[in-house]
């Protein structure tokens, strides 16, 4: 990738891991980048990794949520490219997995029949599926903001804006290490199905169990991912400029939901 090349966003397994409108994350990002920078941006969709190698040609690799069955199909494909994906993330590619795609980053997923599916193993956690569906609105503090304390604007943005979303899963994640979590749950449940923490961030790898069009619902996350993309390209000036962009439509919708969900928290406490 060089700074003059167009921004390339990969929606991997968009055919099966796109259960809750996740495709809109890519649309939001493309619109945001094209409206606010000089860069051109393209979305590439792929059913399998072999169709889109080399992975480090992408600025972002995204996988959303799928059924438990679809997730196993994704696991069987992606695990053959463990090194390629890791190298891309260690280079300049932001890797974002949401919903049950985040489980791909751990050591394994065990289904309700007891079958174990080895995963990418980038982090030391195991996932166990259950027969119980866990669904809940989610309100989160951005625990990862201190990683960006050197950038005042971004830090302020993440500090002042809580993240909202939805949890829809049947699994429990058991960590064997203490990761840098993405979120602290104020409403909803985290990786261990208690009101604790969700997701992980390490370098360019970002994951959360929140489902759906997170970047549509959370303008600050949209700006954060765009910031990551441009700072990975060494275009820090552009990255910095994006955190202050005004998004009136997105902000209007966001504020209504935040207000409603805060009321919900008050009712529950």
């Amino acid at each position, binding site marked *: 990738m060089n700074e003059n090349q167009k921004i390339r966003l990969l929606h991997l397994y968009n*055919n099966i891991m796109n259960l*809750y409108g996740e*495709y809109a994350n890519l649309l939001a990002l493309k*619109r945001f980048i094209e409206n606010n920078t000089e860069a051109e941006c393209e979305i590439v969709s792929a059913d399998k990794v072999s169709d889109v190698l080399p992975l480090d040609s992408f600025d972002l690799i995204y996988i959303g949520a799928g059924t438990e069955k679809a997730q196993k199909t994704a696991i069987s494909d992606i695990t053959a490219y463990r090194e390629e994906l890791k190298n891309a993330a260690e280079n300049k590619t932001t890797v974002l997995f949401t919903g049950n795609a985040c489980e791909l980053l751990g050591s394994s997923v065990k289904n309700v029949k007891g079958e174990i599916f080895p995963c990418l193993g980038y982090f030391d956690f195991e996932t166990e599926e259950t027969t119980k*569906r866990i*669904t809940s609105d989610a309100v989160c503090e951005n625990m990862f903001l201190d990683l960006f304390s050197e950038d005042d604007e971004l830090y302020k943005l993440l500090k002042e804006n809580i993240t909202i979303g939805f949890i*829809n899963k049947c699994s429990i994640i058991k960590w064997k290490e203490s990761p840098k979590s993405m979120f602290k749950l104020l409403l909803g449940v985290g990786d261990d199905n208690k009101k604790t923490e969700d997701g992980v961030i390490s370098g360019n790898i970002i994951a959360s169990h929140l489902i759906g069009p997170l970047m549509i619902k959370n303008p600050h996350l949209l700006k954060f991912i765009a910031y990551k993309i441009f700072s990975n390209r060494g275009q820090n000036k552009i990255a910095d400029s994006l955190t202050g962009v005004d998004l009136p*439509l997105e902000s209007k919708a966001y504020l209504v939901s935040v207000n409603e969900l805060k009321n919900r928290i008050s009712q529950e406490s």
Partner: protein
Amino acid sequence: MRKFFSILICKLARFAGKLMGKGSSMPGKLALKVCPDILGKIKLPKYIIAVTGSNGKTSTVEMIAHVMEDAGLNIAYNKEGSNQIEGVTTFILNNCTMGGKFKKDYILIESDERYAKYTFKHFSPTHYVIVNLYRDQLTRNGHPLWVYDAIKESIPDDTCLILNADDPLISTLGEKRKDVIWYGMDNISTDTTENTGVYDDGKYCPVCGGRLEYDYRHFNHIGSFSCEKCGFKKHHTDYTVTAVDFDNGAIEIDDTAEIGLAFTGIYNVYNILAAYSACCAIGIDKNSICESLNNFVLKNGRIVRFKLSERTGVLLASKHENSISYEQSLTYAANRKVPGDVVIIVDRISRKYYTGDTSWLWDINFDILNTDKVDKIYLMGLYSGDLELRFSYTDIPKEKIKVYSDIHEGIEELRNRSDKEIYVVTCFSDKEKFLSETTIQQ
């Protein structure tokens, strides 16, 4: 003794609940506490017809009940719509003697697709109609495959299944079973060969995972499918809609039976066909079924005609969190002969539970409304900002869209804007907020 007390408590609680205007689940809940297997202890009639699936349960049950009543059959059905085990228990115990004998000759039950497995653990329906399986209320249902597993678990071995052959996932439930009645629709003029939705849940074979091909799609994944890899395909149908004339509002079943449509949406056709198939299965004369269903107007409030000052309109109750239900209502509004304004209201997402999740808006193809037949589009309610944002990703010209977070304010604007027809698409949770400011027409 426990049986007696369980029935007694249920009847008393129902009586008291009715006086206080309470719902119908609590009496059944109390009865099940006293006697958890009470449903297995009731002497039930020879015929028990159950209906489940994502869309059209209530309407199909209402149609079946109407046909059966017209045919002079002695039936009871859970018309209050409480379709989980507690509600079904209330319904059954209140229709039986203190000795535990059901008083009517036929039971007709609408059953919740996720909870049918608990109800049918205690007794088996003789006929089980499964209408379809879509992305529906995913904030509580998870996803269609999750619901599919629950439905599969609810099917007793000795039950006659009545299945929608046009739905690939539902069709797998009839695989390797003997007693199955299939219904479906032949190719009609509004069909497509490609998927026109935002997502495609009919892309892969539910049996082997191979790619499904379609001769035609009625909508989304509903149509004539086949898998080259494993040979799984649309089953031959026992009852078939062979012709549809939306212009004149009529359908033909099996080339002979003609039924007039009070409402010309394709889902209404499916509901009629499901009801027709179930009624044929229990031996009602085909001519009398057609007579009963001919121009039948549902009373469940899903389609309401209204007048707003001098303007007339139709409200189509479409479940929020159900893209197929929404798209069918949008298609209806976009295909009228007379152009009109469309109103979409999202104020409370569900009447039954709380959620603030609006991800489902991204599963709906709102570009259906990008036609000359649609004049202005009014987005109303608390989540009108989410709607506005969603519409900004469509090709619909911005100047056609008007946004009102306050529903009353939007209605006032609508009242005198023009004399065009109004089509309102919203959910049960929000429909009264609109209708309360109109005059409802019969």
